[in-house]
C-alpha cells in the first residue's frame, strides 16, 4: 500500500492543476479548495511515507516507463530513501501552509483560479524533483519547476515589471540548465548510468580527471541557475515582482534550494574531483558575504529578504563543497521554516499597508501589527543563528565544517555580521518609530488564513532544532572540539546588531549611502553591456546580413534571376501557375521516358 504513496503524492497536485485548467477556471472558490486539498493530500501522503516508508528502498516502487530505446533509459522511478522522504514532507508541508496563506492573500483577485493551478503545478514538479531517482527525470521536473516559477512570477500579467522579471528568471535558469544537461550527458557517457543509486559504485571506477571535473562543474551549473548563485544569481531579487506567497514558497523555502538538493544527490560525482569541490565551496563562501552586503542598502522589504536568501543558500552550497551534505540539508530544512515565515510576515506587512514594499514608507508597525512583528523578530533571530532557535543549530553545523578552512570560515562568519545588521535595520525601520504615511497608520493584521500559517511556521522555527534530523540526514551534531567556531560565529552575529541598533533606532532616512551596494555591484548593468547588448547587436547584424545579402543580393541581385523573377511574378499574378506546373511535370516525364529508352 505504502508503495503507491509516492504516486498519490505526485498525482494529486497534478490532477488539481489539470482539472482547474480544464474545468474549474470560472469557479475560483472551487479551484482554491481543490488545489489546497490536493496539497493537503500530498502532505499527508508524504508524512505517511516519512514514517512508514522506510521499507521502500530503491526499485521497490515500479518505475513509469517513458523512453527505453537503444541503450537509453529515461523512466520515472521513485526514490524512497530517507532524504527524499524527509524533503517531500518538508516541501508539501510548507506548500500547504502557503496555500492556506494564499487563500487570504489573494482573496480579492479575480484570477486566483490561475494562481492556484500554477501553484499546484509547482507542487507537482517540485515533489517530482525530490522523488526522482535519476538525473533525466530530475531534469524534466527541473524544467517544469522553472516553468511554474516563470508563470507565478509573471502572475500579474498586466504589470510590465512582472513580465520582465519572469523572463529573466526563466532565461537565466535556461543558461544554467544548458550546463546541467551537458553535465548529465557527460555523466551518462562516463558512468553509463544517471540513476542515483548507481552513481556511488560507478563513479568510483577510474575515469579521466578532467572529464570528471567537467561533468561535476556542468552539474553545478544547474545549481547556479536554480539556486541563484554567482554568476547566475541576478534573477532572484527581480523575482520578487511575483505575489508574496510565491516569493515565500518558491523563491525562499523550496524551489531555490532544489539546486542544493541536486548537489547532494550527485555528491559521489562531485567528490571525485577536488577542483570541483573547491570551486563549489568558494563560490558558496563568497556568496554568503556579497548578497549580505547588498542587503544592507536595499529598501524593498522583499528584496532585503531575497538577498538574505541568496546568502543562506550559499551556506548550504558551501557545505556541499566541503563534502558535508548533512549540515547542508539540515540548514535547508530550518531555512525553509524561518525564511518562509519571514516572507509570509513581509507579505502580511505588504497586505496591511496596501501594497507598500518600501520600508522607509512604513514605520510604527510594531504597535499596529504586533503578531507580525513578533514572528518577524523570531524569524530574524533564527536567521541570525541565535540559540536556541532552529537556525542556530544548522548554521553551527555548517560553521563546524569550516573549522579547517580558515578562509571560508572568515567570509561565512563575516556574512553573519552583515546579516544581523540588515535584519535589525529592516525591523527597526519598518516596525519601529512612527508611521510614515496613512497606509502604515491604518495597517492591521490580516485574516486567520494569513496568521495561522505564520503561527505554525513560528512554532517550527522555534523548535526546528529539536527535529530528529540525524536519522534521515545521516548527520551528527558537531563535536565538542570544534566549539571555537560556535563561539566566534555567535559573537560576530551578535556584534552585527550593535551598529544597526544605533544607526537605525530613530532614523527616518538611511544614514548610510553606498551606491555600489545599492546598485548591486552593477552586475545587471555589466551583464547588459557585456552579454545582452552585444548579442542583440550581433543578432541585428545577422538579420541585416540575412535580409540584404542572402535574400536581397544573392536572390534578387543577378540580372538573369531578376528577369526570371519577373516571369515568375507574372505567372503567379495571372494565377497561371498551372502552365508552369504542366511544363514541369512534362519535363519530368520526358526525362523518365529518356531514362526508360536508355534502360
Amino acid at each position, binding site marked *: 500500500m505504502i508503495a503507491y504513496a509516492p504516486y498519490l503524492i505526485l498525482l494529486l497536485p497534478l490532477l488539481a492543476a489539470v482539472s482547474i485548467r480544464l474545468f474549474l477556471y470560472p469557479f475560483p472558490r472551487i479551484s482554491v479548495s481543490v488545489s489546497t486539498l490536493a496539497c493537503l493530500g500530498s502532505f499527508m501522503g508524504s508524512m505517511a511515507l516519512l514514517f512508514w516508508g522506510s521499507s521502500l528502498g530503491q526499485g521497490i516502487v515500479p518505475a513509469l516507463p517513458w523512453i527505453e530505446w537503444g*541503450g*537509453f533509459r529515461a523512466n520515472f522511478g521513485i526514490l524512497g530513501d530517507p532524504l527524499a522522504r524527509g524533503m517531500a514532507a518538508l516541501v508539501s508541508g510548507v506548500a500547504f501552509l502557503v496555500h492556506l496563506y494564499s487563500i487570504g492573500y489573494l482573496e480579492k483577485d479575480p484570477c486566483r483560479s490561475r494562481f492556484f493551478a500554477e501553484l499546484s503545478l509547482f507542487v507537482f514538479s517540485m515533489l517530482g524533483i525530490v522523488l526522482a531517482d535519476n538525473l533525466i527525470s530530475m531534469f524534466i*521536473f527541473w524544467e517544469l519547476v522553472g516553468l511554474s516559477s516563470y508563470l507565478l512570477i509573471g502572475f500579474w500579467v498586466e504589470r510590465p515589471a512582472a513580465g520582465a522579471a519572469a523572463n529573466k528568471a526563466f532565461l537565466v535558469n535556461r543558461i544554467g540548465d544548458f550546463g546541467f544537461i551537458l553535465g548529465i*550527458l557527460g555523466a551518462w557517457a562516463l558512468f553509463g548510468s544517471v540513476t542515483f543509486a548507481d552513481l556511488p559504485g560507478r563513479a568510483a571506477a577510474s575515469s579521466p580527471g578532467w572529464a570528471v571535473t567537467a561533468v561535476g562543474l556542468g552539474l553545478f551549473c544547474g545549481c547556479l541557475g536554480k539556486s541563484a548563485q554567482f554568476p547566475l544569481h541576478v534573477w532572484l531579487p527581480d523575482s520578487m515582482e511575483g505575489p508574496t506567497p510565491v516569493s515565500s514558497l518558491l523563491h525562499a523555502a523550496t524551489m531555490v534550494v532544489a539546486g542544493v538538493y541536486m548537489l547532494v544527490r550527485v555528491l559521489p560525482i562531485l567528490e571525485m574531483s577536488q577542483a570541483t569541490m573547491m570551486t563549489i565551496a568558494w563560490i558558496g563562501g563568497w556568496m554568503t558575504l556579497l548578497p549580505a552586503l547588498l542587503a544592507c542598502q536595499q529598501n524593498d522589504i522583499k528584496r532585503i529578504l531575497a538577498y538574505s536568501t541568496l546568502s543562506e543558500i550559499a551556506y548550504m552550497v558551501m557545505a556541499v563543497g566541503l563534502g558535508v551534505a548533512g549540515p547542508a540539508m539540515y540548514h535547508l530544512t530550518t531555512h525553509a521554516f524561518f525564511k518562509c515565515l519571514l516572507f509570509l510576515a513581509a507579505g502580511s506587512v505588504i497586505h496591511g499597508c496596501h501594497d507598500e514594499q518600501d520600508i522607509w514608507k512604513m514605520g510604527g508597525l510594531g504597535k499596529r501589527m504586533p503578531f507580525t512583528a513578533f514572528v518577524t523578530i523570531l524569524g530574524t533571530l533564527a536567521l541570525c543563528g541565535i540559540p536556541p532557535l532552529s537556525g542556530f543549530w544548522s548554521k553551527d553545523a555548517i560553521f563546524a565544517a569550516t573549522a579547517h578552512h580558515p578562509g571560508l570560515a572568515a567570509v561565512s562568519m563575516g556574512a553573519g555580521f552583515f546579516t544581523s545588521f540588515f535584519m535589525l535595520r529592516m525591523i527597526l525601520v519598518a516596525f519601529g518609530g512612527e508611521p510614515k504615511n496613512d497606509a502604515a497608520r491604518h495597517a492591521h493584521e490580516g485574516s486567520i488564513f494569513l496568521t495561522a500559517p505564520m503561527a505554525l511556521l513560528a512554532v517550527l522555527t522555534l523548535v526546528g532544532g529539536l527535529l530528529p534530523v540525524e536519522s534521515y540526514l545521516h548527520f551528527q551534531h558537531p563535536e565538542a572540539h570544534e566549539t571555537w567556531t560556535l563561539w566566534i560565529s555567535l559573537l560576530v552575529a551578535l556584534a552585527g546588531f550593535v551598529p544597526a541598533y544605533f544607526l537605525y533606532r530613530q532614523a527616518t532616512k538611511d544614514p548610510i549611502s553606498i551606491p555600489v551596494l545599492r546598485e548591486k555591484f552593477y552586475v545587471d548593468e555589466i551583464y547588459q553591456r557585456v552579454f545582452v547588448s552585444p548579442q542583440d547587436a550581433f543578432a541585428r547584424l*545577422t538579420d541585416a546580413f*540575412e535580409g540584404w545579402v542572402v535574400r536581397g543580393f544573392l536572390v534578387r541581385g543577378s540580372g538573369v534571376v531578376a528577369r526570371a*523573377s519577373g516571369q515568375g511574378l507574372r505567372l503567379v499574378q495571372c494565377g497561371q501557375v498551372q502552365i508552369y506546373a504542366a511544363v514541369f511535370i512534362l519535363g*519530368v516525364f520526358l526525362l*523518365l521516358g529518356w531514362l526508360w529508352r536508355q534502360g
Partner: protein
Amino acid sequence: MNIALALPLLLAVPLVAVGAIALGASPRKTALWASWINLIPGFLVSGVVLRRGEIFYGPEGTNLREVFPVQFRLGLDGLSLPLLWLTLLVTVAAIGVARADVKRAMEYHICLLLVGLGALGAFLSLDLFYFFSFHEVALIPSFLLIGIWGQGDRTGAAWRMTLYLVLGSLLLLIALIGLVWAAPETARTLDWRVLTETLRAQPIPASQQTYLAALLIAGFGTLVSLVPFHSWAPGGYASAPAPAAMLHAGVLKKFGIYGLLRLALPLTPLGWRELSWIVGLMLAGNILYLGLASLAQRDFRWLLGFSSAMHMGTIFLGLISGTVLGLGGALVLMVGHGLSAALGFAVAGEVGQRAGTTWMKDLGGLATRTPKLWFYLMIAGMASIGLPGLANFAGEIMIFFGAWSAHPFLVGIAAWGVVLSSVAMLRAIRSIATGPVSSALDSKKGSDLNGFQEVWPFALLTALLFLMGLVPNLVLGPARPVLERLIQP
C-alpha cells in the same frame, strides 16, 4: 474486401473533395468533412501496420526494362506511419482554422486540400516518380496560397520560395535519377524498396556515393531549409496565410527529412559519413545563425518562420548521429515540430485577424484580453523551446543523447540553441501577451477564441503535443525496426 485499398482511398478522399468543391459544393464544409473522413482509412491502414509492420498496394515491383517504369505503388511502414498521421491531423486543423469568408473560397480550399493530398502521396509512394511528383503537387498550391492569399511582401515571398524549391527539386531529381542509375543495369527500378535491397546487396562505389549524397543533401536540404539553402523559408511562412503555413511548415517540410531517412541514409551510407562534417557545419548554421537572426525579428510571423527553420538543425543532428536513438529522436522531433509549428502559425493567424497586425511592438495584453489564445500561444511557445511534457522535448533529449558520443560539440551547439530559441520566444510572448492591452487589440473586434467552433483545432494540436510528449512510444514503437534497418551496415 482488401484492406490495402484503404491506401489509395487516403488519396482519393481529398481528390473527390477537390472535385466536389470545384463543382460547387460548399468549400469549407466539404474540405472539413473530407479531412475528417480521411481519418477512417488512416485508422484502417494503421491497424495493419501495427500488426504486420507494413502494408502495400499496387502491382509488384518490376524491372525498369520490361514495362513502362512508372507504376502506382503505395506502401506504409512504421517510419511513414507517424508522418501519415501528422499529415492527416494537421490538415484537419489547418482547414479548421481556415476562414469561411476568405476571398475566392473555392480555390482557397482546393489549394489547401491539394497540399495535404500531395504530402500524403509523397509519404505513401513507393515509386520514386510518384514520390517526387506528389511533392510537386503539394508545392504548387502552396505557392498559390502565398501569392494570392498571403500578406506583406507576398509576391516576393512566393516567387523566392518557388525559385528555391524548384531548384532544390531539380537537384533532387538529378540525384534520384543518379540513384536509379547506380544500380546494376538489370536491376534498375523506380521502386525504392526494391532499389534499397539491390543497393544494399551491391553498394554504390564510395566516390559515387559522395556525389549522390551531396546532391541528395542539397536537394532535400533545400526543401528542409538547411542553411545555406534556407532563405525562402522565414519570409515564405511570414507571408503565407495561416493554414498554408501550418501545412507547409508542419507537414510538407518534413518530406525532405523523410527523403533523407529513406534514401540518403541507407543508399549512400559512405557518402553520408564522408559528408557528415559538412552537414554538421550546415546544421550549426541553422541553429546559431538562424537562432541569432530570430532574436532580431520584430514581426511574430517572421520570428516563427526563423525559429521553425532553426529547429531543423536539431533534427539534422539526429540524422547524422549514426545511432538508432538519434534517428528515433529525429522522428519524434519531426512530429513534434510539425505540431508545434502548426499551432504557432495558427495562433499567429488568429492574432493577426484580431489585432490587424503581428508586429510585436504594437501588440500586448493578449493575456488579459484573450486568455484562451494566450494559453495556446504559451503551449506553442513552450513546445518549441523544448519544455518537458510536450513532444519536442522528447525528440530533443533523444537526439542529444544519441549524438553525444559522435558529435559532442554539435550537441553543445544544439543545447545552446535551446537557450537562444527560449530568448526569442519568451521575449515574443512577453511583448504579445503581457502588459497593458494594446490599442491594436482594443480597437479591432479583439474577442477571444469563440466557442468550440474556433477552439477545437487549437485543442486538437495541443492534445497531440501532450500525447506525443508523454507517450513518445506511440511513434517510436512501430518505427523502431525500420530505423534499425536503416543504419544496419
